[in-house]
C-alpha cells in the first residue's frame, strides 16, 4: 500500500472513532442532554456556581 492510501485509511478510521464512537456514545453535550431550553441551562449553571 502506498503512503497516500495508508494515510487515507488512518484518516477515515480516526474520523469514525472520533465522530461516531466517541461523540455518540461517550461525549454527550452535558447541558444539552439534561435541558432543552437556554433558560433552564442558565438556571442550572447559576445554581451550580452559587451553591
Amino acid at each position: 500500500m502506498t503512503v497516500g492510501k495508508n494515510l487515507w485509511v488512518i484518516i477515515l478510521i480516526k474520523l469514525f472513532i472520533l465522530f461516531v464512537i466517541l461523540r455518540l456514545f461517550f461525549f454527550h453535550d452535558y447541558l444539552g442532554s439534561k435541558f432543552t431550553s437556554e433558560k433552564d441551562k442558565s438556571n442550572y449553571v447559576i445554581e451550580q456556581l452559587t451553591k
Partner: protein
Amino acid sequence: MEHIDFSLVNWSRAQFALTAMYHWLFVPLTLGLSFIVAFMETLYVRTGNPEWKRITKFWMTIFGINFAIGVATGIILEFEFGTNWSNYSWFVGDIFGAPLAIEGIMAFFLESTFIAVMFFGWNKVSKKFHLLSTWLVAIGSNLSALWILVANAWMQNPVGMKFNPDTARNEMVNFWEVLFSPVAINKFLHTISSGYVLASIFVIGVSAWYLLKNREHLFAKRSIIVAATFGLVTTAFVVLTGDGSARNMAKYQPMKFAAMENLYVGVQNAPLVAIGILKEDAKEASHKKQDFRFEIEIPNMLSYMAFLDPNAYVPGIKDLVHGNPERQILSYKEKSELGKIAITSLAEYKNAKNAGNDSLANAAKIRFEENYSYFGYGYYAGRDVHELIPSVATTFYSFRIMVGLGVHFGLLFLVVLLLTVKDKIAKKRFILYTMLWSIPLAYIASELGWVVAEVGRQPWVIQDILPTIAAVSQLKPASVQITFWMFFLIFTALLIAEIKIMTKQIKKGPGEDESSTKSASVNN
C-alpha cells in the same frame, strides 16, 4: 461550594492535559514545516532547479503524514469542553465560540482547499499557482493557530467581555480587545515561532541522519541551509516573544510568575535564578515552600525581565497569598471574601428576579458587579488559600529546561549553518548526532512551554474568575477515567502510526522525481 469531588476534578484535568499534550505533538511540526516547504518551493520556482523540486516534494510528503495523522485530534478538546467542563463552556459563552467559529470558517477552509492543490496539483496547475497554494496552506495553518490561541489567551487574561447575570454567560463587548490583547498577540507569536524552531530542528535532524548514512548529500545540505537559517531567525524571535510573555505574566498572572521563579518573598532588584535545584523546606511544609539547595543568580535580572526596570519590586508567593499593604496587594483571604460577596450576590440577584423584586435585584447586581473581578476567589472562602498556589517545582523546572533547550537550539542552528556553508558538516559526526538527537529535545521543549503556561496558572480555568473546581461537570469520575484511557490508547496508536510511516518514508528517501537528478547535479 462545600462538597468538591477532587477525584473528578483531577481526572478531568488529567484527561484535558493528556489530549492537549498529544495534540501538540502534531501541531508545531505542521506550523513550521508548512513554511519551510514554502521556502523550498519558492527556491524551486525562482531557480528552476529540479533538485529543489525533489527536496520540496519530500518534505511535503513528511508534512502530509504529520497533517493527516494529527488533523482533528484537537476536536476532542472541544468534546471535552461540552462534556467534562459544561459549567465553563456555558460561562464563557460566545467569547470562546467566536474565535473557534472564525477558525472553522476562515482558516480551516483556506487550509483544506489549498492543501488539495498542494498535494495533487503538481503538473496540473501552473508553477506559480502551485507555489501560491503552498504559501496559503502555510498561512492558513498558522491562522488556525491564531484563533485557538486567542481563546487560550483570553482565559489567561479575560478582557473585552461583560458577564450577564441573567444568562450566566460572559458576553463579548469588544472583539478587538479580545483579539489584540497583549497576552493574545504575544501568545500567538511565541507559540507559532516555537513551532518554527521545532520544525527546523526536525528538518536538520532528519538531514543529519542522511549524512550519517552517507546518503543524499546534496539534498541534506540544501535542506539544512533552509531549515537552519529559518531556525536561527525564529529562535531569535522566540527569545523576543518569550521576553514579552514574561512581562505579561508578571503583570496579569503574578502568582504564575512568582511560582516560575520560586520567589517566595517579594524583593526589589530581584535576581533571576539561571540554574537552581530546589529542596522542600520542612519548616513550612503546609505551603510546600521550596528553598534552593543550589542556585546561580543573575543580579537584578528578574526585576528587569518583569518590568524593564532593574530596581523594580517583584511580588513573591507570600506577598500574594498573605497580602502586602505597603504594595497595595490584597491577600487571598481578602480576595476570597470579596469573591464570596460576588457569588452570594449572584444568587440573591437570581432569587430577587424570580420573586419579581426589582429593587432588591438591582442592589444585588451592583454588589455583584463591584466584586466580579474576584468571583473565582469566592470558591476558596473558608478553605486553605494555599490551594491557589500552583506546583512551584513543575513550573520552575519546566521553564528552565525549556529555556536551556532553546539556547541549545539557537547555538546548534548557528554552528550547523556555518559548517554547511563551509561544506564541512558531513565530516562532523558528533554535530550530526547532536542534530539527530535534538529532535526529541525539541518536542520536550515545546511541551514544557505549555506546562509552564498551563500548570503555572492553576487552579484557574479563567484567571481570577473561574477555578477548575467550579468549572467541572458533575459526572461520575469513573466515566472520565474510562475516556481518559480510551484517549490514551487512541493517541498512542496514532503516534505509533505517525512514527512508523514517517520513518519508513525517511528511510525510503526523496527518491527520483520525473526530472532527472543528473540535471540537478549539473545545476549544483
